[in-house]
C-alpha cells in the first residue's frame, strides 16, 4: 500500500503521513472543553459506519465533558483542600507510587480508558481497527490504527 502523495512545492524532506493511522482532532468550537470532532476521517470511510463512529466519539465526549464540569462535590473538595493548604491532597487516594489528587477529572479519564478498551473489543476490533486512548496522546487526538489495509 502506498503512502500518500508528497506535497507540491515541498522540499526534499517529504512529509509522509502514516497510511495506517487515522487521527480524530480536538473540536474547539465549544471552547476549551475536552471534546473530539465527530467527523469521520477519510481513511475510515467504508471501514466503519458513520453513525457508529459518531456515537462512539459522542460517548467519549460526554465522559470527557463531564470530567471538567464542576459539580458541588468538586467545589467543596477544592475548598476543603485550599483550607488545609493543599496538604489534604497528600492524604488522598494514591495511584501506584505517586500521590495525586484523585478528583472527578482523574476518575473520568480512567473511565474513558475503560470505555476505549470496551470499544476496541466490541466495535473497532471486529473491523480490524484499534483506537488509542486519548490520554496516551495527551488529549490532543484520538488515534485509530488500521490493523489491516
Amino acid at each position, binding site marked *: *500500500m502506498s503512502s500518500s502523495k508528497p506535497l507540491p512545492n515541498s522540499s526534499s524532506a517529504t*512529509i509522509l503521513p*502514516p497510511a495506517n493511522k487515522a487521527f480524530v482532532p480536538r473540536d474547539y468550537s465549544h471552547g476549551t472543553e475536552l471534546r473530539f470532532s465527530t467527523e469521520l476521517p477519510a481513511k475510515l470511510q467504508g471501514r466503519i459506519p458513520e453513525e457508529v463512529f459518531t456515537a462512539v466519539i459522542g460517548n467519549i465526549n460526554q465522559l470527557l465533558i463531564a470530567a471538567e464540569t464542576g459539580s458541588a462535590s468538586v467545589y467543596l473538595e477544592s475548598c476543603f483542600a485550599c483550607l488545609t*493548604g493543599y496538604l489534604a491532597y497528600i492524604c488522598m487516594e494514591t495511584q501506584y507510587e505517586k500521590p495525586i489528587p484523585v478528583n472527578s477529572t482523574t476518575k473520568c479519564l480512567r473511565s474513558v480508558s475503560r470505555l476505549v*478498551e470496551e470499544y476496541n473489543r466490541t466495535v473497532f476490533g471486529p473491523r480490524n481497527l484499534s483506537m488509542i486512548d486519548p490520554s496516551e*496522546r*495527551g488529549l490532543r487526538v484520538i*488515534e485509530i490504527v488500521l*490493523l489491516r489495509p
Partner: protein
Amino acid sequence: MPKRWEVYPGKSQVLCSGRCISAKNLSVFYLTLALIVISSCLFLAFDCRLLAVTLSPSVPVLAAVQFIFVLCCLLRTTFSDPGIIPRGTPDEAAWIESQLEGPQVDRDGNYRPPVRLKDVQINGRVFKLKYCFTCKLWRPPRSSHCSTCDNCVDRFDHHCPWVGNCVGRRNYRYFYLFLISLSVYCLYVMVFGIVNLVLLIMIFSLTLAPPTLTVLTILVAFFSIWSVVGLGGFHTMLICRETSTNEDIKGSFNQRRHPDLINPFDQGNGLANCCFVLFGPVTPSLLNFREDEIGLGSSISLVTNNGRNGASAAAASTAVTATPAVRYSNLTRNNNDAASNSVGHVNNSVQVISESLPAQLPGDGNDVIVKNGNGAPADGVISGGTDAVGVTSVADCIV
C-alpha cells in the same frame, strides 16, 4: 525501559523521578524562598517573644500557620505541572503538516511561509489556532508556548521567575493563593513588627540594644507589600474577568480596542468566574511522567513491568488491553530501524505481522496468554474477550 520523564524533550527540570517539574533556573525562586523563610524565622524568634507575653500566644501561632500556608502554596506552584501539553508524536506531526499549505512562491516572486493558522468559531467569536512547530500540535485556545521552558502550556498565564515555573491552568490557583496569602502575611508581619517595636520603646525605653533585626523584618515586609499586594490585586481583577495575563497583554478580550469582542469563557459574573478558576475541577497532568515510555524504540515487555508494579490484576489488564495497537506499532518499529521515523515502512510491517499471527488463541480462548519479546509467557494471565475474532484477540495480547 525508560520512564516518560527520562525522555522528556522540553527545557523544564524534572525532579523526584518524575513527580515534580519546574523551570531549569531556580535562582530567583531560592531568593523568594530565602526572603520568606528568613523573615519568618526572625519574626518568630525575636518579635514574637515579647508579643506572645504581652499580647497573646496566638500571635506566633497565627504567624506560623500563615507561614506554612504560604510555603505550601509556593511549593505547589513551583513544582507542579502548570498544564504542559505533551508534544505530538511524529505520526501526528506528519499528518498535520501534510495538511498545511507548504511554503509557496506567488506570481510576484514573493516567498510566502507555510500557513500555520486555522480559524475556529467559539461561541460566536473567531479564534485563530496556531500550529506549534516545536511541540507538533495545534495549540488549544488560550494556550501558549513558553520559550523559557520550551513547552506549550494550557491557559498560559505567564512564566514567573520568582516562583520558578510557568503559571498555567493547573497551578494558577496555587499561584493566586500564594500571592493573597503572602500579602496577608506580609501585612501581619509588618503590623506586629511595628507593634513589637512600639512595645519595646514603651516598656524598655530603648535601654536595650537597638532592635535591628526587627527593623529589618519590618522593612522587608514593607517593601514586599507593594509588589505582592499590587500583583495580587491585578490577578484578582483578571480572575473576575476570566482572562489570563497573556491574554491581557495581547488585548485579546480588550473591549476598548475591539468593542465587538466578547470573552467566550466568561461565566457572566465575577464571583462565578472566581469560583470556577479557584475551586473548579483541575485537569490531571497529561505528562504521565511516572509511566513507561512506550514510544519509538521501546521494548515490548510492558506487561511484565506493570505486573510487577504491584497493581491489581484488573489494573494490569486494563493497562495492557487499553492500548493494544500502540504495542503493535512498537513491534513494527522495533522490527524496522527504530531510530528512523520512516513512517512509510510501517504499514508494510503491520501487514506482515498481522498475517503471521495465528487466527485462534492458544488455550481455551477464554484466557489470553501474554507473551513477552522472547515468546515465553509473561507474568500473569490476562482475561481477554471471547467474542473478538482473528487478529483482534491476538492484538489484545500481543506485547
